[in-house]
């Protein structure tokens, strides 16, 4: 980490800025928000996957003592809303399209009364036949989820770069297979919740545990039919986001409608079961067919991918996610000719949406297994195939993604060493195997409003301490600490002398929030620019006091020095005070913004979608029990290229947490449905790995510097779970020669495959 040495705050293992509050239990999560006169909300949800609402009778519920409001779609403007396609309503209009959909809601003086009142709402239902499988939903004559979407198709993609037919004709080896991913839930420790308040002047104030405040404000204002500034979103402490708290669900909207009708604040927090049924939008599940053409020397010549993605009942972010699944991986290796076809299909199930990786885990599950198939077919070590094809700085993908920094090859070297690839491959113990996969992710993604930027304000207080005002928000990943480090580094003050505000759409400037691994890179740059603005003003004032030119000044550890005359110095606090306490004095306030040097992809989805690309390699050594099919991960290694590591403790947490979700995705999780009804919406039946299930992990960060990033940094958060399922599947194949193509990889599937293989290999059969 030679490059980090020149920094005084960046790269240091500083204390997390909100760490003290969290370990002492003082952080105010959404359940801790209390407003005077606050009511408890409760939602009536559809018990049916697809059913028409003939009539709703709320009279009995309204008459229950303690009930202050009962709302249905009649209390809304019935305007559809959604991140990409406006196709969902606050409360069911005419029919419900999945089990758990919000139909009506109650606000009452306590939760028990609210629950009792929900039971008193009478709905006259007419059940309808539903569609529960994406491929069946596309058939002619299948029931329609939305009457205006023929064959239930929400979106199609068909993109060819180069000449795919010729590229396959020129390939020496072609492999093809189909892989099925699965629905996966975020399982954040805190469920989605909000506290909404409505003022008679028409203004809504909503406390939310969202990870994207301004996007939430935009969508909520749209659905309520009010100007954006009539909605104020204040972020509570957030107990984990992972994409699930990016306001694609109706929780805050229902709370807002209740608060308006009751004229009292309303708290509405999902139970765990509600979170599974209709809260966080789970990972889009996909069936992916991959066809790869290789040259004899291992170079990839052609790639054709066909994706069928299950949208669920409403679209949320699935359109963009499907695009990522179809295209993102083409920035990982040096591709020339690629074809990508995708279909996004409505079904009568929970809407799918954003989850760490955003389409990439599904795609890498398929593509990285296909590459492994190619390596075996060619008789080339999989790690060499990766080396031969790995992206490099300067690579431009067939879709126009321009790679600046890229240490994928360095990551391959690191992973190879950490897992002891060569020796273990040479001396293979029985039933053990090695697997590997590469990954790429973005550092921000340009879509909403042709903007992938951020802005920040820094106020320098009269005691010399700086306060960052940022609307990006902290959702548990540690980005506030990284922002404070970046500001402290730029200002030349101690990190303890930088604070950061909570995100509040009325008080902080415009920010898009936490998604697409963007914050360290995009908001880090904005904070750095704001700090530079503060520093400019600070040096202007200090230059008068020190009788020196501003360009001759340097700041370090809270003091400003004159270069070459180190004895001549003054504290930042003295300068801040001097600037304030004088005739016409003014506080030092700096502002900074940043917009990534990317372009909004065109109608064929061509264009450099992100300002920087982060890379990684994961490898695993596994053992498979041939009698039970159980997989034991003996060792897992991760090498990550995220540019300069700003906040190492946070970065390590991202790697470890990403692996946990990756292992869950590979081996243990997956919501199961029966006619659209989830059958395991609880933590007893839906199993996420516990700490004790985690394999031994060794990981390292590449020596890397992103020239467009703040102090050389780029994104990291999603990289760590993208390839994990493929890594484990590839290792199982190496261990016992069977490949499982549907997630999760259960011991039962392995045992079945082993038995089938034994039958096939039996002499004489």
């Amino acid at each position, binding site marked *: 980490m030679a490059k980090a040495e020149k920094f005084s705050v960046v790269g240091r293992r500083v204390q997390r800025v909100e760490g003290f509050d969290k370990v002492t239990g003082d952080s105010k999560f959404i359940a801790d928000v209390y407003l005077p006169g606050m009511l408890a909300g409760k939602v009536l949800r559809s018990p049916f996957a697809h059913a028409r609402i003939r009539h709703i009778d709320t009279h009995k519920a309204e008459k229950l003592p303690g009930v202050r409001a009962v709302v249905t779609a009649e209390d809304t403007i019935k305007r559809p809303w959604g991140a990409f396609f406006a196709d969902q309503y606050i409360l069911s209009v005419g029919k419900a399209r999945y089990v758990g959909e919000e139909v009506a809601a109650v606000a009452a003086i306590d939760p028990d009364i609210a*629950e009792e009142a929900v039971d008193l709402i009478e709905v006259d239902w007419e059940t309808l036949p539903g569609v529960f499988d994406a491929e069946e939903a596309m058939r002619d004559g299948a029931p329609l989820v939305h009457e205006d979407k023929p064959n239930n198709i929400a979106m199609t993609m068909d993109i060819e770069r180069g000449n795919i037919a010729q590229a396959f004709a020129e390939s020496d080896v072609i492999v093809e297979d189909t892989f099925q991913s699965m629905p996966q839930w975020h399982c954040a420790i805190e469920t989605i919740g909000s506290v909404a308040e409505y003022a008679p002047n028409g203004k809504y104030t909503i406390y939310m545990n969202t990870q994207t405040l301004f996007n939430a404000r935009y969508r909520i204002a749209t659905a309520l039919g009010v100007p954006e500034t009539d909605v104020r979103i204040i972020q509570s402490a957030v107990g984990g986001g992972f994409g699930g708290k990016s306001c694609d669900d109706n929780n805050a909207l229902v709370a807002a409608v209740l608060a308006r009708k009751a004229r009292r604040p309303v708290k509405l927090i999902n139970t765990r079961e509600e979170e599974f049924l209709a809260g966080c939008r789970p990972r889009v599940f996909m069936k992916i067919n991959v066809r790869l053409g290789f040259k004899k020397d291992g170079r990839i010549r052609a790639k054709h991918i066909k994706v069928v993605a299950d949208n669920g009942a409403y679209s949320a972010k699935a359109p963009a996610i499907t695009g990522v699944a179809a295209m993102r991986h083409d920035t990982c290796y040096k591709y020339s000719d690629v074809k990508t076809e995708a279909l996004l299909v409505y079904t009568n199930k929970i809407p799918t949406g954003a989850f760490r990786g955003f389409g990439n885990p599904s795609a890498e599950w398929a593509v990285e297994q296909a590459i492994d198939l190619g390596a075996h077919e060619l008789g080339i070590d999989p790690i060499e195939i990766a080396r031969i094809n790995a992206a490099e700085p300067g690579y431009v993908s067939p879709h126009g993604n321009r790679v600046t920094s890229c240490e994928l090859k360095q990551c391959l070297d690191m992973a190879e060493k950490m897992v002891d690839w060569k020796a273990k491959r040479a001396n293979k113990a029985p039933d053990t195997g090695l697997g590997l996969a590469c990954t790429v992710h973005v550092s921000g993604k340009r879509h909403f409003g042709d903007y992938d930027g951020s802005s920040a304000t820094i106020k320098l207080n009269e005691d010399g301490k700086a306060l960052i005002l940022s609307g990006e928000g902290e959702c548990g990943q540690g980005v506030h600490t990284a922002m404070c480090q970046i500001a402290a580094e730029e200002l030349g003050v101690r990190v303890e002398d930088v604070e950061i505000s909570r995100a509040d759409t009325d008080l902080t400037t415009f920010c898009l929030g936490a998604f697409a691994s963007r914050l360290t890179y995009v908001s880090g740059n904005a904070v750095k620019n704001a700090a530079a603005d503060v520093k400019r003003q600070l040096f202007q004032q200090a230059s008068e006091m020190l009788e020196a030119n501003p360009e001759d000044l340097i700041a370090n550890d809270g003091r400003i020095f004159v270069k070459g005359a180190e004895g001549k110095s003054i504290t930042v606090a003295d300068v801040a005070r001097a600037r304030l306490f004088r005739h016409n004095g003014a506080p030092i306030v700096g502002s900074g913004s940043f917009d990534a040097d990317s372009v909004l992809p065109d109608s064929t989805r061509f264009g450099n979608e992100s300002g920087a690309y982060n890379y990684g390699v994961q490898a695993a050594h596994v053992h498979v029990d041939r009698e*039970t099919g159980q997989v034991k991960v003996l060792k897992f290694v991760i090498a990550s290229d995220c540019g300069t590591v700003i906040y190492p403790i946070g970065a390590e947490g991202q790697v470890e947490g990403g692996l946990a979700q990756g292992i869950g995705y590979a*081996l243990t999780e997956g919501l*199961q449905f029966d006619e659209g009804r989830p*059958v395991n919406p609880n933590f*007893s039946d839906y*199993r996420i790995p516990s700490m004790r299930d985690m394999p031994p992990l060794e990981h390292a960060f590449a020596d890397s510097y992103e020239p467009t990033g703040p102090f050389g940094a780029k994104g990291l958060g999603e990289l760590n779970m993208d390839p994990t399922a493929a890594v484990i599947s590839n290792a199982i194949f190496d261990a016992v020669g069977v490949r499982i193509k549907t997630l999760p990889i*259960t011991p039962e599937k392995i*045992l079945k495959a082993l038995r089938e293989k034994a039958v096939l290999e039996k002499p004489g059969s």
Partner: protein
Amino acid sequence: MMKFDYLQPRTLKSALALLEKHGDEGRAIAGGTSLLIMMRQRLLRPKVVISLAEIPKFDRIAYSPKTGLTIGAGARHRDIELSPLIRAHYPLLHETFHKVAQPRIRNMGTIGGNLAAGDPLTDPGASLIALDAEVVLTSRNGQRVMKLDEFFVDYYQTALETGELLSEIRVPPPSRAHWAHIKFTPRSVEDFATVGVALTLSMKNSVCEDVRLGLNSVGSTIVHAVQAENALRGHEATDARLREIGEVAATEVDPVDDNRGSAEYKREMVKVLVCRAAKEALAR
């Protein structure tokens, strides 16, 4: 959450009186780890919840070489796991209770509550069957003592009658030196077992003198695999014989499909894991 009255009797006698008085509308609560979940899911709606927390010495663990072990029904999983007496004389129980859920649950849940819930997915019952345990059922009218394998009737159903309380567990002095416990949890170590195997056996030369085999998560109750025991008792413990008892045990179970595997897979795992448990026990 529903409304209910919460009563906290201070003696066993008054607890039994309250249980009798409230009949089917009353429910005893000890650790609450299973009752509260059922109440939250509205599967049970007791009008009266009778706490056993204040009953004196209800969590007592005692051992004598002559009479064996007695465990008060109020003993928590963690108490049993960490008891030096149990660790010294019944290592199978120590190991089993160490594997129950995780410490947060073990610190709350009790052995009496566990057995009385009649949940075939949990671990303690199989190991207690493998140790010939009996349960004491107490009511205002007196006591009944019953073999544990007769106590389990069906899913969440036991021989407990209205007004009766499972008050004590009795385990005879250990008579079989070899033991093994396998909790097969391929998804997560904190999961319920996909298949659980508890086995004790004694050997004379290379012949199996006696054996007990309890299985959990493979039927509507915890299973006492008597036929598999018969297939081994009095026979030489050869590899082929141990494989055979796995096959026999697989005919004694009636698993269902769930998130932990299909019925077919669980039956297959009974074959594999019973054989493995026997080998493990012999090696111990």
